[in-house]
């Protein structure tokens, strides 16, 4: 069971949230080639390690959150609003 610290509601169980996938993919510009759009839609880094992802707090504030979670230990080390970015890895490890 994940416990996700929502910055708006506090720590909540994963059952209140809906997973929305990889948060590192950004939509290519309209001038880009079709291959860039295919990569944006289909290709994923899928790392064994830290993963930046979207979670929608459907059972709470209904806001979209950006979560940095480890895909093996499931540890969550950062949660933020959509526009925010997690601190660089060195800083996160030191804290």
């Amino acid at each position, binding site marked *: *069971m994940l416990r996700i610290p929502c910055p708006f509601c506090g720590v909540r169980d994963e059952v209140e949230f809906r997973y929305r996938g990889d948060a590192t993919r950004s939509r290519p510009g309209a001038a880009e080639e079709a291959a860039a759009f295919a990569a944006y*839609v289909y290709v994923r880094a*899928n790392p064994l390690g830290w993963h930046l992802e979207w979670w929608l707090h459907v059972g709470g504030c209904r806001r979209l959150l950006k979560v940095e979670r480890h895909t093996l230990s*499931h540890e969550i080390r950062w949660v933020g609003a959509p526009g925010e970015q997690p601190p660089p890895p060195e800083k996160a490890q030191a804290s």
Partner: protein
Amino acid sequence: MMPPPMPPPSRSSAPAIRPDRTSSGRYSLWRLLREGLAGQRGWSRVWAKAPPRARYRVVIVGGGGHGLATAFYLATEHGITDVAVLERGPLGLGNVARNTTIIRSNYFQPANVRFYEFSLKLWEHLEHTLNFNAMVSQRGTLNLFHTEAQRDLFTRRANLMRLEGVDAEALSRAQVKEVVPLVDLDNGRYPVLGGFLQPRGGTVRHDAVAWGYARGASEAGVDVVEHCAVTGLRRDGQRVTGVETTRGFIAADVVCLAVAGYSSELARLAGIELPIETHVLQAFVTEGLKPVLDVVLTYGAGHFYINQSDKGGLVFGGAIDGYNTYGQRGTLPMVEEVTAAAVTLLPALARVKVLRQWGGVMDMTMDGSPIISATPLEGLVLNGGWCYGGFKAIPAGGFTTAHLIAHGTPHPVAAHLDLGRFAAGRTVDERGVGPFPWLH
């Protein structure tokens, strides 16, 4: 005295007979009787524990069902025996031993029906092919439906299957009750309206599949190398030249990745990103019971499937946990969902104890269909992206991957499973939910 000159290396010649190679002989009733009278002393190791050589024509990464089956069919169908299968741990402890052992071909997309039907036909002859008892049991796969819309969908699916020459039968409520007396037809939430049976579906002893293919491949001359993890892929420009392993560098003309769950991590070593996410799928087994369920039963109002093993335990599973993970364990919300589905459909199981629960990590592709394909790197072949369907596809996956390696062109029943289909807009969307693998 001068040593005799070494013969020139040949790409296609079989390696010489080596002292570490043993033969387990042919298994038969006569052999069983003879060994019984001779104190069971004549049995030998089922596959040779081969140390890796410095070069092979084909190196297969992953000693699971698909890797071993690919090696077996390369040796027996195409005469290519200069092959090594590298497994990072002991053989057959990955997904081939973590599934719920179900085989069936009741898919929706005609191309997938043809592929899984090809697999089912290979399962039907597997024990003769391998001379190994894999306990293939065609007990039937019964899918239940709970709404009128679902009846239409299942009828359409059954008709599509019959057009492909695959068996499918519609069952009424009364017939469902006759086949599975435990079912609560009038359960409060999702009453059962009927079912759709594939009589040739069933189960197979999954460990025996790994052992049988390993034995067959090993006897045909393939090196099955355990405890040999791949740590890097060596390349020369756009061509793969071999693999770095924990037991040294191994050169190869062709490297095949058959590591579903870890395909993204291995492909990254070659600088390739895949349309795959890794998710965990859980399975459960209860204490042993008297025979209560003689088909594979699936629930249509959720994701739940169950069958009874020959030992008596009920083996069941549900959907993936729903977010990227490489953790082979699974989490509690899905345990609750699966057990809720179990007692809704089969209330008599409410007091049955679950003995064990485990998880396996799946390659979930963006369209819900597997990938058997060449890659942008010449000489690198990918067998992966199995989603929920890896175990039942083992014979066809191995057969068609071996064909791709031997001929350089895809086998006709797997031609639609190429990696290029995503960019080209030819996805084989089995569930019709778009590129969201946690929904497949």
